[in-house]
C-alpha cells in the first residue's frame, strides 16, 4: 500500500514539475508509505511515490519503468490476481525481471492497454506516464477502495492519493470549500465523486479510467455495478447451491488476501457476523500466528466485547483490544478530519483511527475487514425498512402493514400506540413514489436535509437552486429501473456511501493514517458478481437480512454471533465534545468569529445548537439523532476549514532532503 502523486504540464507554456514539488508530495504522503519514497522528473511529467512494502520488498521500487523507459508507473494498492496475470502474460511471450506485482501491472498495461484494468481483481489507484505518446493514464479499482484526486490549475494537472499532497505541491492552488459538496454532505452524509469537499479538486470515480493526452481528456467507466433485470434467471441454482458457492468464493477471496503478502496479515473483529466470518476463513488459510484487533467502548451502549472475545477465543487468535471513550474521540477528532478530508456527520471514524494505531504498534501492516458485506448481501436496516414501506404502499390504507416497522425498529413497539402513529407518519411519507428510484433513501435524505437550516445566508445563496437529490437521480444508469427494488436500493447505497464514506473516511484514510493496509474480501470482484446475480430473496429473505451469508457462516462463526440482532457500528457521538471536559479545539471552532470566517453556517443557529446540546448533556439527557448529526457536521466542517483553508493546524514537517530510502530518477536532461 502506498501513496502516489504526480504533475503533468498540459500546455507547452506551463511550468514542468520540479523535484521540490514532487518531494513536497511525498512528504505529505509519507504516512501512506513510510518504507521508501521516490520521485521521477520526466520532462513535462513528474511522478512521486511513497511505499509501504508488502510484496517483494526489493523488486517493487517506484516510480517503476519498463525496459526501454518509455512508460512509467506509480501504483497504490494490490492486484490480488497478479500471479495468474503474470502466468498469462508469460504465456503470451512477456518476460519478467522481478517478483513484484508492480511489474505485472505495468506489463499488463503494455500488453492490453486500458483493457488491462478490467482484468485486475484488486484495490488500486495508479498513474502511467507514456512518454512517447505524452499520455497520462489514471485508473481506479472497481469499487473505489483506493483514492485518487485530480486538480487542474495554471495549465498543469496534479494528481495524488490525498488532497493534502495536491495542496502541498503548489501553494498557488486555490483553497476553498465547495458549497455543493457541503450541500451533498447534509443530504447523503458525504460528498459524492467526482466532487470533493474542495472547489477545483476532483475525485476520479471508482471503476473509471481517465486518459490525458495533448488532444484532450477522456473519462471512461471500465466497470460498473450491475444487477440482473427483473424476472431474469441470472442464477440457476437453489438457495443451498448459493450458500455453498458464496462460502467457497468468500474463502477463496479471503485466502487470496491472506497469502498474497510477504508480511503477516491480521483481521478486525467487530463482534458482528461479517468480520467474524472473514476472521474464521482467514484462520483456516494460515498455520501461522494470526492477530485480531477490536475496538471496545467504555460506554456499554456501543460495546461488543463479549462477541469479539467469543470469536477470538474460538479461533485461537492473538487478540488485541483498545478501549475507546469519549475523551479519546474528542482528542483525535481533528486528526480524523485532517485524514478524511471531508466533513462527516458521525464520529464513527475516530475509533478506527485509534484501532489502526494499535495494529501498527503490534507490528502488523495489513488487516482484513468485513467491509462491503452489508452492501453486497443486503445487511442494512434501510433495505428492510424499504421492503416494509413498499409492502405498505401497495395498500396505503392498511393499519397493519406499517406495524411491520416494529420488527425493524423495536423501540417503536415499546412506545405508546399513538406515538407509533407519529413514526408511521414519518415512514409513510411518499408512499406514492414507492416504485421510483430513491424511495428507500428518501427518509434518510429528508432527515439530513432538514439540517441545512443551519446554513448561512451566503451559503444558501452559493448553493442556489442546486438540487443534490435531483442531480443524483438524474444520472442513474438507464437500466436501473429494470432491476429488482432491492437491487436498486443496493446500487444507491453503494453509489452514495460505500466508496464515498465507508471505504474512505472510515476505511482507507483511517488505516493509512497509521500506515496500515486494509483488505476487503467481500469486495472481491468475483464475489461481488456472484452476490449481484443472486435473487433478492436469497439476500433479504422476508425480513431476514444477509440470509445466504448467515447460512454460509454456519459451522464457521459461533451461533450466538449469527443469531444476534445486527448492531450498526456506532461510537459515542457529539457527547464527546460537550460538557466540562469539552476539548479546547471544539470551543474554538464554534466561536462566532470562526463560524463567520468559514462562512458555511449561521453563527446564531450554531450558538443555539451548541447551547441546546450542552444543556441536554448537563441534565443527563441523551442527544437526539438529529442534534448529534448537526453538531458533528458543524464541528467537522469547521475543522476542515481551519485545517485546509486557514491552515491553522501545524502541517507535517517537510523533509526535502534526499534520504537513504529515497530513489530519485531524473531523465531527459533535467538536472536533479
Amino acid at each position, binding site marked *: 500500500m502506498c501513496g502516489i502523486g504526480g504533475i503533468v504540464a498540459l500546455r507547452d507554456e506551463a511550468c514542468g514539475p520540479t523535484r521540490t514539488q514532487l518531494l513536497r508530495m511525498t512528504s505529505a504522503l509519507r504516512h501512506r508509505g513510510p518504507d521508501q519514497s521516490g520521485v521521477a522528473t520526466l520532462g513535462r511529467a513528474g511522478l512521486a511515490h511513497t511505499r509501504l512494502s508488502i510484496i517483494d520488498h526489493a523488486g517493487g521500487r517506484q516510480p517503476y519503468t519498463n525496459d526501454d523507459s518509455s512508460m512509467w508507473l506509480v501504483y497504490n494498492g494490490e492486484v490480488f490476481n497478479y500471479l495468474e496475470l503474470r502466468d498469462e502474460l508469460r504465456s503470451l511471450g512477456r518476460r519478467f525481471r522481478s517478483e513484484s506485482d508492480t511489474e505485472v501491472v505495468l506489463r499488463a498495461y503494455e500488453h492490453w492497454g486500458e483493457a488491462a484494468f478490467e482484468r485486475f481483481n484488486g484495490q488500486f489507484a495508479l498513474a502511467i506516464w507514456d512518454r512517447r505518446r505524452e499520455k497520462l493514464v489514471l485508473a481506479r479499482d472497481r469499487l473505489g477502495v483506493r483514492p485518487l484526486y485530480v486538480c487542474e490549475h495554471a495549465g498543469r494537472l496534479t494528481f495524488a492519493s490525498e488532497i493534502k499532497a495536491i495542496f502541498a505541491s503548489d501553494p498557488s492552488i486555490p483553497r476553498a470549500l465547495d458549497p455543493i459538496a457541503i450541500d451533498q454532505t447534509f443530504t447523503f452524509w458525504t460528498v459524492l465523486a467526482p466532487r470533493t469537499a474542495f472547489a477545483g479538486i476532483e475525485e476520479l470515480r471508482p471503476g473509471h479510467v481517465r486518459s490525458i493526452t495533448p488532444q484532450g481528456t477522456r473519462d471512461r467507466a471500465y466497470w460498473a455495478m450491475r444487477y440482473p433485470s427483473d424476472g431474469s434467471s441470472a442464477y440457476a441454482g437453489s438457495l443451498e447451491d448459493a450458500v455453498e458457492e458464496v462460502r467457497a468464493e468468500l474463502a477463496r477471496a479471503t485466502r487470496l488476501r491472506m497469502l498474497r503478502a510477504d508480511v503477516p496479515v491480521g483481521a478486525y473483529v467487530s463482534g458482528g457476523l461479517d468480520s467474524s466470518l472473514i476472521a474464521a476463513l482467514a484462520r483456516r488459510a494460515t498455520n501461522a500466528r494470526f492477530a485480531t484487533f477490536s475496538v471496545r467502548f467504555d460506554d456499554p451502549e456501543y460495546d461488543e466485547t463479549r462477541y469479539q472475545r467469543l470469536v477470538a477465543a474460538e479461533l485461537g487468535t492473538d487478540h488485541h483490544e483498545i478501549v475507546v471513550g469519549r475523551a479519546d474521540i474528542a482528542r483525535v477528532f481533528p486528526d480524523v478530519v485532517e485524514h478524511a478530508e471531508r466533513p462527516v456527520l458521525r464520529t464513527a471514524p475516530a475509533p478506527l483511527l485509534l484501532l489502526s494505531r494499535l495494529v501498527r504498534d503490534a507490528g502488523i501492516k495489513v488487516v482484513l475487514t468485513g467491509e462491503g458485506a452489508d452492501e453486497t448481501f443486503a445487511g442494512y436496516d434501510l433495505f428492510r425498512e424499504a421492503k416494509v414501506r413498499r409492502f405498505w404502499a401497495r395498500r396505503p390504507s392498511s393499519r397493519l402493514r406499517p406495524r411491520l416497522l416494529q420488527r425493524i425498529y423495536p423501540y417503536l413497539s415499546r412506545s*405508546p*400506540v*399513538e*406515538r407509533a*402513529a*407519529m*413514526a408511521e*407518519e*414519518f415512514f409513510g411519507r411518499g408512499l406514492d413514489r414507492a416504485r421510483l428510484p430513491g424511495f428507500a433513501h428518501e427518509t434518510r435524505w*429528508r*432527515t439530513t*436535509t*432538514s439540517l441545512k*437550516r*443551519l446554513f*448561512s*445566508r451566503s451559503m*444558501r445563496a452559493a448553493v442556489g437552486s442546486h438540487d443534490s437529490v435531483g442531480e443524483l437521480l438524474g444520472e442513474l444508469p438507464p437500466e436501473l429501473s429494470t432491476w429488482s427494488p432491492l437491487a436498486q436500493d443496493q446500487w444507491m447505497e453503494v453509489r452514495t456511501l460505500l466508496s464515498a464514506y465507508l471505504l474512505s473516511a472510515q476505511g482507507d484514510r483511517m488505516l493509512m493514517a497509521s500506515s496500515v493496509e486494509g483488505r476487503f474480501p467481500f469486495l472481491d470482484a468475483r464475489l461481488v458478481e456472484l452476490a449481484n446475480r443472486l435473487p433478492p430473496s436469497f439476500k433479504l429473505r422476508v425480513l431476514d437480512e444477509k440470509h445466504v451469508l448467515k447460512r454460509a457462516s454456519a459451522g464457521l462463526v459461533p451461533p450466538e454471533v449469527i443469531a444476534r440482532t445486527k448492531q450498526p457500528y456506532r461510537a459515542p457521538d457529539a457527547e464527546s465534545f460537550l460538557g466540562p471536559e469539552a476539548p479546547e479545539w471544539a470551543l474554538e471552532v464554534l466561536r462566532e468569529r470562526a463560524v463567520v470566517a468559514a462562512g458555511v453556517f*449561521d453563527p*446564531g*443557529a*450554531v450558538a*443555539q*445548537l451548541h447551547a*441546546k446540546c450542552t444543556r441536554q448533556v448537563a441534565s443527563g439527557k441523551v442527544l*437526539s*439523532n*438529529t442534534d448529534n448529526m*448537526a453538531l458533528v457536521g458543524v464541528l467537522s466542517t469547521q475543522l476542515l476549514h481551519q485545517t485546509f483553508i486557514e491552515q491553522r493546524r501545524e502541517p507535517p514537517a517537510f523533509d526535502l532532503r534526499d534520504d537513504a530510502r529515497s530513489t530519485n530518477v531524473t531523465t531527459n536532461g533535467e538536472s536533479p
Partner: protein
Amino acid sequence: MTTIDAVRSFIVTNFYVPETIVLTDDVSLLELGIVDSTGVLEVTAFLESEYGIEVADHEIVPANMDSIRAIAAFVEVKAARAA
C-alpha cells in the same frame, strides 16, 4: 408574549432555526423536518413545563403538532379546559 409568539420562540431556539429563515405560523414543521419524531417529544416537554398542562399520548399526533399555529391552538384549548 402571546402563545403563538412563545411557541415560535421555542421552536426557533430549540431547533436552531437561523434568524434569516422566517417561519410562518402555518408552515408544516414535520414536512420541513424541523420537528421530527424526537423533536415532537421536546415540544411536548416544553408545553407541559411552560403551561402546566398534561399532554396525553393520544394527543401527540400530527394534527396538534404540525405547525406553530396548531401547537398554540392546542395549548390554548388545553389551558382553557384546565382553567
